[in-house]
């Protein structure tokens, strides 16, 4: 079951920080990050990739 992070309406770096906090909490499984701008999507993707 995936964890959903609701980050729509938030400006960076908040979606990124919420993503990183969730990655720290969840060891396994899928995390779905909800964003509503392309910039947030890129920033979140980049941050997630940097976590491996």
């Amino acid at each position, binding site marked *: 079951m995936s964890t959903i992070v609701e980050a729509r309406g938030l400006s960076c*770096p908040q979606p990124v*920080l919420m993503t990183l906090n969730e990655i720290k909490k969840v060891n396994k499984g899928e995390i779905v990050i909800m964003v509503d701008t392309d910039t947030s999507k890129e920033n979140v993707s980049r941050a997630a990739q940097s976590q491996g």
Partner: protein
Amino acid sequence: MPLFSFAKKKVKSIPLTQNQDRGILVFENTSEVIRAENILKTEGLKIRVMGPPPEIRTGCDLVIEFPLIEKLYILRKLDEVRVKPIQVVPVSNTLLKPVDLFHIKDFGNYIMIRAANMKLTIDKETMIIVNISDGGCPDVPYLASEMIGKHLSDAPSPRSIGHTLCGYALQLAYEEMQTRCSR
């Protein structure tokens, strides 16, 4: 009280913007501003990168403010490295704004510094850069890909890999972050 600290208190530095005739160097693009700033600072000159006054309609979004008394020396140094300003004008008003104003926000485990239009965020515990955002310049994705995930002290400086106003602003945020994190 030790003599040195007494003497130190008596010394007053005169800000660049006061009691000194100033001029501005206008360049074609931000890369040239960054190059010129590096060169002139290396020479020990008291210069500052500023936003241009409204009457300057040419050039890029940044100008270099300098003491007019150093004009010939500065132009010679820039000529040596083929960085040529498109205008050199005396400053006649106080409308210049420094671009080194910072906004700092603490997110608990993370700290963000915004300089002009760029935000830099690091993890306070690990000092790893976690986010670089805003700006809208074409080199921001590249700057982000080169810096995110790296320790603040290991990441390349935006000055060395950036080419735009965003790179310049990010450099300011990066330097401010380094200063704050070294305290």
